[in-house]
Structure formats: structure tokens, C-alpha cells
């Protein structure tokens, strides 16, 4: 893995002073992905599934080729891949279609405080409408999901388990495979939020045996506006569509209609075509480097930075044992929004806030955190720059009286 060559693929990095440490929010995009979008718009930028002319045929072929790539990327089958606007839409689809139609007041939904809002609010909604009970898996003292704690809330009433694969604040990897096995023994289905996992770890839905799994293109080198929902074929078959309109129907009469099979019954309207193609190109890019290599490299950068960060006084780190390239921290006594302006001044992009995960921020008992996240285009030199900026920021804020 030659980082300098990789960096050359990212046009935004032509600005040599830029240190981008916000991949967990959205990754940078390589030229291969940008070119793919261009190719669609310049060469066959027409609708899919509709035109009976050659250009539309090419666009449709490309769109479905992207779906095949996604399927093979997570070891699923073609019909199990639904294109959505992003992970949020995908997770909402599960709750609105499966949740609202299968749960009743006697059922329980297990969620966790590690979830992104997009994986807890849809289930809150299901709970409010159906009366099913929302049950929180107690996190351990590090803030992790453990099997023992999962067992403590899993009951015969559990119908759905909504759990994140990788936490976007703590960077912990959840024991998904074991959770799925235990949940299935109780007859519950498991919805996995893989938005932070897909860019960094090999996902195999057959091995995990999860029922639903969602992720976003823009966090894994792909475009914005495209995401994926994987659902097991037999489940998707029974689930009703949640959006109605063109493309998703079969026969339409005045007072009723029939739907196409999955995935199409869940994809009404003109889809994000260029974006789906771009996601395909991003997958090619990731597979070319190899997810194992990506993960190994990220961990190298994270370990290096963590070690140095720990040595700085007045830095509070919230996830010392993080399993991925995500570090959440604060400078003691300095609000993250004050701190972030300092880093911005050094052209270091980072996230400050609650990261759309207020429950874990409350669990941590802080107002907000800073978050640095590392990816394939970051370098050891950037880690050094970041660490020295943290030190200088701390000194600066002390000097002005924080």
C-alpha cells in the first residue's frame, strides 16, 4: 500500500496543508469515483428501467452492475440489495416496513445508547405507534456492547434488535455475529447499522447471518445521496413498500395495484443513478487496496496518535480502547466548538459536537466531544501535525484564560 500514490488519487489533497480527520462524517472522494459520475453524465446520462432505447439500456446495465458489485462486496445476492438515499433511509425503511407491520404492544425492541440517531429514532417511532417496548442494552463501563449484557435484556418478547456494527463516537466493534445467533434463537430479527463498518472491515452477511444491514456511500469514498439496505430475501418478500410511485409497481388498477419483487418494490422514482455508479467505483477502489490492509493501516495511525495524545496533559480521551480509527476526546475546560476553531486555523478538519449520537454523549456525561478519524489517505506526518496542534491549542486556550 503506497500512501503517496493513494493520496494522488484524491484531488482535494492537492492542498498540501489540508489535514482531513473527519472521514467518520464523510470520506474524501478519489478521482476514479468522480470520473465515474462524469462518465454517466457525459456519455449515457438518461433514465434507467424506462427507455427502450440503447442509451437507456446502457444506463440500466451500469446501474444494475453497481448493484451486483455491492452484493458481492458484502456477500449477498442481487435481489437482497436495495439502493437508498443513505444509511439513514435504509434504516428507516426497515423500521417503517418491517417494524410497523410486524410489531405489537406485547413485543420488545432492543436498541443501544451507542446508536446513531438514525438507528434509534425510527424504532422510537415504531414503539410510539405500535406500543412495542423499547429496551436499552446496558453498556459496560467502557461503553461497549457485551454479550452478557445483551443476554440480560434478550427475552422471549424480543422481536427486533437494532445494533450498530461500529460506533461512530467510540469506534468500538460490536459482537454482531454472536448477537445475531442469540437473537435468532429467540426468533428476533437483527438490524445492523454498518455505516462505520463498511469503509473499514470486510462484511460478510452470510457469516454474520444478520437480517438487515445498512451503509452509506459517502463514508466509503463514494458519492453522497446513495446508500444500501441489505435484507434477507425471505424477509424482503413479505415486507410492504413504504413509498409508492413509478417503477415499483407491476399492474396498476383504479383501486389497487401489485408490486414488483424486491429490490424494485422499495425503489420508486428515478434512483440516484450516477451515485450508484460512483458507489460501484468506490467499491472497486476499496477492494483493490483490500479492506484488511485499510483496517491495518488505520489502526497503525490511530495507535501512533493515541500514544502521543495520552502523553499530553489536560486531554480527556473517551475511548482509549477504540477498535477503529476513531478517537473521541476533549481539551479539559475547553468547549469542543472553541477547540475546533483552533484546529480549523491549522487547516485540520475534525468533528465537534454530539455526532448525531446524543445518547452516548449523555452516557459519557459530557456536552460534546471532538472526534478525529483516520483513513487511508492520512499519514504519520499528519498525525504529528495533529498532535502538535492539540498541544498548541491547549496552550493557547490556557493563555487566554480558559
Amino acid at each position: 500500500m503506497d500512501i503517496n500514490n493513494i493520496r494522488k488519487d484524491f484531488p482535494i489533497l492537492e492542498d498540501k496543508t489540508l489535514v482531513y480527520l473527519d472521514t467518520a462524517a464523510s470520506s474524501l472522494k478519489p478521482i476514479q469515483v468522480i470520473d465515474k459520475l462524469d462518465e454517466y453524465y457525459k456519455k449515457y446520462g438518461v433514465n434507467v428501467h424506462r427507455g427502450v432505447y440503447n442509451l437507456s439500456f446502457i444506463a440500466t446495465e451500469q446501474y444494475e452492475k453497481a448493484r451486483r458489485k455491492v452484493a458481492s462486496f458484502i456477500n449477498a445476492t442481487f435481489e437482497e440489495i436495495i439502493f437508498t438515499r443513505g444509511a439513514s433511509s435504509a434504516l428507516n425503511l426497515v423500521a417503517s416496513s418491517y417494524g410497523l407491520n410486524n410489531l405489537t404492544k406485547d413485543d420488545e425492541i432492543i436498541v443501544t445508547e451507542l446508536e446513531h440517531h438514525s438507528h434509534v429514532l425510527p424504532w422510537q417511532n415504531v414503539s410510539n405507534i405500535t406500543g412495542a417496548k423499547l429496551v436499552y442494552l446496558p453498556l459496560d463501563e467502557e461503553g461497549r456492547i457485551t454479550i452478557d449484557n445483551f443476554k440480560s435484556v434478550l427475552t422471549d418478547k424480543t422481536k427486533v434488535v437494532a445494533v450498530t456494527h461500529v460506533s461512530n463516537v467510540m469506534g468500538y466493534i460490536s459482537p454482531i455475529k454472536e448477537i445475531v445467533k442469540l437473537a435468532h434463537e429467540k426468533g428476533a430479527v437483527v438490524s445492523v447499522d454498518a455505516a462505520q463498518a463498511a469503509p473499514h472491515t470486510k462484511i460478510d452477511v452470510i457469516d454474520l447471518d444478520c437480517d438487515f444491514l445498512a451503509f452509506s456511500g459517502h463514508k466509503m469514498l463514494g458519492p453522497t445521496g446513495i446508500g444500501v439496505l441489505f435484507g434477507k430475501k425471505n424477509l424482503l418478500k413479505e415486507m410492504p413498500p413504504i413509498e409508492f410511485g413509478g417503477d415499483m409497481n407491476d399492474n396498476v388498477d383504479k383501486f389497487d395495484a401489485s408490486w414488483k419483487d424486491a429490490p424494485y418494490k422499495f425503489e420508486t422514482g428515478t434512483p440516484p443513478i450516477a451515485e450508484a455508479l460512483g458507489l460501484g467505483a468506490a467499491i472497486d477502489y476499496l477492494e483493490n487496496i483490500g479492506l484488511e490492509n485499510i483496517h491495518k493501516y488505520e489502526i497503525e495511525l490511530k495507535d501512533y496518535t493515541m500514544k502521543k495524545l495520552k502523553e499530553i496533559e489536560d486531554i480527556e480521551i473517551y475511548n482509549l480502547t477504540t477498535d477503529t480509527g476513531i478517537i473521541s476526546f476533549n481539551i479539559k475546560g475547553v468547549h469542543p466548538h472553541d477547540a475546533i476553531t483552533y484546529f480549523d486555523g491549522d487547516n485540520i478538519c475534525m468533528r465537534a459536537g454530539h455526532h448525531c449520537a446524543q445518547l452516548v454523549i449523555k452516557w459519557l456525561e459530557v456536552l460534546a466531544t471532538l472526534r478525529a478519524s483516520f483513513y487511508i489517505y492520512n499519514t504519520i506526518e499528519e498525525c504529528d501535525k495533529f498532535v502538535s496542534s492539540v498541544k498548541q491549542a491547549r496552550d493557547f486556550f490556557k493563555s487566554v484564560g480558559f
Partner: protein
Amino acid sequence: MNNMEVLYRQVIMDHYKNPRNKGLVQDELYKTIHIKNPTCGDDITVQSKISNGVVEDVRHDGTGCSICCSSASVMSETLLGKSVDDAIKIKDAYINMLTNKEYDEEVELEEAVAYTGVRKFPARIKCASIAWKAFEGTLDESE
């Protein structure tokens, strides 16, 4: 390389560390507005008491970054005792100044002038304006 001193002026730090007019009151003569910026977590409540066209009291409370919290304090001091008309003029001039719009430079911003540096940090303009927006809201309530 980092021109942070422009932002963190002494006045601002002073008000951040020793906020004036902080703490809310339970009094029907006060109008109360609560504004929350969910992306950054700034959370400010402002109260004003208007009588006979004069800003008799301004109170504030909340949590947030130094720019947000200090500006609530600076605002309260700046507007206290002003006529409502003047308070509106100051508020408008301040907001326009922050957002790089034309503003009446004749209007005396007093200590709030310390926030001119915020203009160089577009991402922080919201922090510096949220308390003032809340004050504006209390006036709307009073009408």
C-alpha cells in the same frame, strides 16, 4: 499561523469567565425565549423585561462555547437601560456587522464591538448571534 487572538479578545474571555446578569427569574413581566443549536449543542435562554419602552432587565442562562456564552453576557450589559428602539438598532447593527452586511457604524456597539473578529470565522457567526436572536424573540413576544 493561527490568528486566534483576533477571536478570543480579553473582553470576551472576561464575560465568559464572569458572566453578568446570568440566571433566569420567575416573573411574569419577563418574556422568555429558548434557542438551541442542535448541531453544536449551544443552548441559550434569554429573558427581557420591557416597561415604558425601556429594556429594564436582560437575563440569560445556558451552556455552550465561550463565544456563545460570553456574547449573551455582553449583550445583557449592552442593552440594559436602553430604549427598545435603541436596543433594536444595536441588535440589527451587531447582527449585520457579524454577517458582513452593511450596518450603521454610527450605532454604538459598546463592548459587543469585540465580536468583529468573529467575521473571520464564518463557522462561528452562529455562536455569536444566538443570544441576540433570542433577545429579538423576546421583543416579538412582548408586542
